[in-house]
């Protein structure tokens, strides 16, 4: 309803600012469309009655409210657009503001890092904030992991949650069946996930773009369905319970006599474990970040970025696309697996329900929102997304509605993400101001 038509009629082009009559007409059309769309879905509510017979009742008041909201919203959007002006207008930013912005941009990463380190100190007594911070860091790590595949190598992966699941189940099953400790299982989980990444990578080497996306999606679903149905191994829908907590060099963080608190001679508090978990995930996330940044400077990382820009050119230059793609999948999966193992030990309980397509989409949204390739952008996007979800906690049933709409609006508003410009990290002599907007998207 508020789409910009590409071939606008001449009348609309000559009058840049549409008149009141035009706005009103547009709003009326929108309201009418909304009335038809919502008439049955909102105006009528169905539910299975006491005898299993379907009954329905009408909700015309809700319908009226929604239609009125669309009418008002349409007028508002049109007025905003008038106020904002045409989309492609170049806005002049004064140099003083620009320099201040660039300073802020350089400072934001270290400040954020220091703040993150201090979170357990600042919010020691706020269990809720600590839990939330752990959650955000988990998604930061997942985002950074997926960023290797999507942001650097340009391979659209919709099944990333599969590796998260592999990591989580690897740790859960190894720990509950063989009693292995978290610190032994963590690398194992990462290796297993990387192995699965290669396994997925092999068949999809020849696929590109949307096909690749849909195959990875199918792969993620297959993993989830196998987890649900292979009851003897995974416990099926009931999941795995009683997953052991991590220890500090073999010292458990429990109130027991051999626990950390008793050894240090301080009073036990459950917060110790939360803080410990916080620093584990922070270390894991920073490891992900460090490895990614280092890899980007290696020939391999450069090959990833080249692959993202143009696969055909890559092959012509003699880059081995097979190993390039496989290493991207494996690296991304490795970090997904590590995050999964952490998730399992933090929750103490995992079930296939935690590894649905929604998770993949959420992580992907974080990467895209963060600007595909920007490490800082991904971290900020994870903070915004998970924080935003928390704000909507009271409206839990509308969560996916808001999330979906946000995704659509973001794609329309800033398809390149909030922070990102996918500028290459290496260049000859001086960086040319070619943003990726000007470069044709590779087909990889």
């Amino acid at each position, binding site marked *: 309803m508020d789409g910009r038509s*590409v071939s606008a009629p001449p009348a609309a082009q000559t009058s840049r600012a549409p008149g009141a009559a035009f706005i009103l007409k547009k709003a009326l059309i929108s309201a009418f469309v909304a009335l038809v769309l919502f008439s049955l879905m909102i105006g009528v*509510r169905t*539910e299975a009655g006491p005898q299993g017979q379907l009954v*329905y009742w009408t909700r015309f008041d809700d319908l009226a409210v929604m239609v009125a909201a669309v009418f008002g919203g349409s007028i508002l959007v049109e007025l905003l657009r008038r106020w904002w002006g045409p989309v492609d207008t170049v806005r002049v930013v004064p140099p003083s503001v620009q320099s201040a912005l660039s300073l802020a941009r350089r400072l934001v990463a270290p400040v954020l890092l220091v703040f993150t380190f201090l979170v357990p100190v600042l919010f020691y007594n706020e269990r809720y904030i600590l839990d939330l911070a752990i959650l955000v860091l988990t998604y930061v790590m997942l985002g950074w992991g997926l960023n290797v595949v999507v942001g650097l190598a340009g391979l*659209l992966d919709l099944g990333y949650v599969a590796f998260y699941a592999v990591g989580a189940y690897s740790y859960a099953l190894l720990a509950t069946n063989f009693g292995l400790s978290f610190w032994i299982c963590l690398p194992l989980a990462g290796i297993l996930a990387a192995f699965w990444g290669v396994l997925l990578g092999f068949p999809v080497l020849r696929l590109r773009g949307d096909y690749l996306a849909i195959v990875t999606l*199918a792969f993620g679903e297959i993993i989830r369905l196998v987890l649900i149905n292979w009851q003897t191994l995974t416990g099926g829908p009931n999941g795995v319970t009683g997953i052991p907590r991590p220890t500090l060099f073999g010292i458990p963080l429990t109130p027991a006599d051999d626990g950390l608190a008793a050894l240090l001679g301080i009073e036990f508090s459950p917060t110790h474990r939360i803080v410990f978990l916080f620093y584990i995930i922070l270390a894991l996330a920073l490891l992900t970040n460090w490895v990614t940044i280092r890899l980007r400077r290696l020939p391999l990382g450069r090959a990833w970025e080249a692959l993202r820009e143009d696969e055909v050119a890559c092959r012509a230059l003699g880059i081995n696309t097979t190993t390039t793609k496989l290493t991207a999948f494996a690296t991304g999966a490795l970090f997904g697996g590590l995050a999964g193992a952490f998730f399992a030990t933090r929750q103490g309980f995992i079930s296939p329900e935690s590894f649905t397509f929604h998770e993949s989409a959420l992580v992907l949204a974080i990467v895209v929102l963060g600007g595909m390739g920007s490490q800082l952008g991904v971290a900020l996007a994870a903070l915004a997304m998970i924080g935003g979800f928390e704000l909507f906690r009271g409206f839990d*049933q509308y969560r996916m509605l808001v999330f979906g709409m946000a*995704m659509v609006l973001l794609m329309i508003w800033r398809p390149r993400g909030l922070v990102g410009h996918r500028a290459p990290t290496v260049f000859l002599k001086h960086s040319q101001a070619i943003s990726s907007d000007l470069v044709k998207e590779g087909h990889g």
Partner: protein
Amino acid sequence: MDYFAQQLINGLVLGSIYGLIAIGYTMVYGIVGMINFAHGDIFMIGGFIALITFLILVSFGLTAIPLILLVVLLVSMAITALYGWTVERIAYRPLRHSFRLAPMLSAIGMSFVLSNYSQVTQGARVKPVPPIITGGYTLHEGPEGFIVQLSNVQIIVVVTTIVLLALFTWLVSSTRLGRDMRACSQDQTMASLLGVDVDRTISMTFVIGAALAAVAGMMYLLYYGLVDFFMGFVAGIKAFTAAVLGGIGSLPGAMLGGLLIGLIETLWSAYFSVEYKDVAAFSILIVVLIFLPTGLLGRPEVEKV
């Protein structure tokens, strides 16, 4: 043998439903070159609208089944088509010249919006309907008392599918709109230079795809007797598999792919395990894309630098 024949019938009916949804994927992919991720949820919305219309008609005391079915079909096609149009207008049209991943992500967002929308407005519980069309024919009675049946619902599903497929094949091959659509799928810029209204043609593609998905939704409702807000996701992926299997961009291919997927799924559930039927369908998707990326009836895509 009788068991196999019965499964064959069931598979063909299920395949018809998949085929109807797959046509929507294949048409949109052929013209815009994107996977309309929200299409499965459009199918789900179609099912819901059919259900609500049916309830209202019955409560008004209408008893003539053919009349009810016709009205339900038309209403759900009309409203669902408007959903398809709106989705294109809101989520895809502004992104038509954006970077390649943008429409895909926007479509994923739209898919979440639609499924959550019907969850919020109609509740999360499965909506069962009593069988609307009963009866059928016994084709063959085996020696052990196993009866091969062809129910009236199955006949209606298959016949409706065939009629609609014929109608839309005619539409694409012999009408002005169909010519425009084919022109747009080959070269949008050139088509617009030659006076084809590209925007309108793309909108109509979405409208037609959504209308067919609505028919599929209604058939699903008639055949299985239930709808829920989550059914669009899996059905959508399977229908997409069907479109890919048949060769994306090809209308008969989508139908053929749908039938094959329906058959494979039914036979797999009958002879191997019901739990892994979705795994089978998804594995086929992967295998087909690896060994037969152009599908059965598709044309190979030439890679240009």
